[in-house]
């Protein structure tokens, strides 16, 4: 008996085709397969947990509706990553002023008591640090390290010069290392 809901991963070609034809069960399997990855990407891109589910829904609706334009030149996940990132950027653009005020008003990070052994907690700590970075640096870091886009690709995606992307990466990395340094230092020793 075929699995009703696949474990997270690359959706099957059959489910992609069936979803395009309007099969809702196939669409549900496709969305379930993408959901964990999409939620992580959105959390990397936007500040705080509160709006993540709203943005995830917007993004996945965009994925389903845009499935006709997926050309199978790469994996569906990679294609969906770009759609999700654009949906998240569009959402952020609508709330730019509000988000910038919130970043400016961020309180200092509490001390980190984790030992890095729990991957989930480590990742949560990392996004707490990201939440305090300006948009541009955050997005450059996420597009480069999380989505593994090259600097020229990021420049094209964000419509800024290559040197600007490099600068944002440099400054963003420095700030992240400074914020994460106490935990790293403890671990090294």
């Amino acid at each position, binding site marked *: 008996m075929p699995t*009703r809901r696949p474990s997270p991963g690359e959706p099957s070609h059959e489910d992609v085709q069936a979803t395009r034809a309007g099969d809702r069960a196939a669409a549900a399997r496709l969305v379930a397969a993408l959901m964990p990855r999409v939620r992580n990407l959105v959390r990397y891109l936007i500040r705080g947990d509160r709006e993540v589910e*709203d943005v995830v*829904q917007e993004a996945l609706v965009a994925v389903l509706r845009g499935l006709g334009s997926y050309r199978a030149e790469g994996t569906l996940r990679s294609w969906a990553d770009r759609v999700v990132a654009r949906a998240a950027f569009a959402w952020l653009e609508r709330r730019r002023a509000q988000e910038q005020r919130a970043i400016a008003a961020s309180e200092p990070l509490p001390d980190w008591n984790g030992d*890095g052994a729990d991957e989930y907690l480590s990742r949560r700590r990392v996004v707490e640090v990201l939440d305090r970075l300006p948009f541009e640096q955050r997005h450059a870091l*996420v597009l480069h390290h999380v989505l593994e886009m090259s600097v020229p690709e990021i420049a094209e995606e964000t419509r800024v010069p290559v040197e600007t992307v490099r600068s944002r990466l440099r400054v963003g990395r420095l700030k992240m290392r400074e914020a*994460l340094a106490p935990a790293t230092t403890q671990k090294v020793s």
Partner: protein
Amino acid sequence: MPANPDSPSHGELLSALDDREGPARRLSEQELEAAVEAVVGRALPVRRVRHGQRRAAIPLLLASLAVTGLAGALVISRRPWAGFAVTTPVPADAITRSSPPRSAPAPRVSERATDTDPRPAPSDAPVASSSSAAERPSARESAADQLKAANQLRRQARWAEAERAYAKLASQFAGSAQGSVAALAAASLRLEQLKDPRGALRLYQSALRAPALSAEAGLGVASCHRALGDRAAEAAALRRLLATHPDSLFRERAERRLAALAAGTP
């Protein structure tokens, strides 16, 4: 050497995107499934209209949307007892014209569900004994505002306050679509966050009386029985759900769980 070589503290600041837990916060299996269903419901509207039958358009938020705070509401086109056709999405806070369920005595709300005075505030429309109250502009706005406020409390993880807000709304607008949605949302919070499956069961059972949401309520009843460890009652609730809503979005989930129960899986 750090315990986890893949953690950012090992030398990388950020790891490549994957499906593992984090950095998005953990969700329960139910919340994840509700999120999936919400996306599919919004992206792939289904239109099923019987010729010659009068359609009653019932605007509502799926209980899962209300519970997870997701923006998006569906206008449901209703056929008697044969399932629900989703026609077109509308914004979450644009709860518009509603018509009453065919048979909807006021749902009982557990006394534990709220400690606030259930009587409406003077500025609110009178408690809806019928759809007319819910349809008046001031009553609609009040219900929508209250639902929005309750959703906001839920987003802030203020579970008990959110549950009370939903329960109050359910009581004030008993018999209306908004009231049924609120009852479902209160029930879900009772079960998932307040860990009170018995209280949640009462709320879900009251929401069963609203045909527009009885599929969601039926699934909720089954979930409560599961939380209470009553496998027989859970199976009965799932079979009832499949019998009364064979085309619902929850069909696969219900069938999967019935198979697990039959196999003795916890």
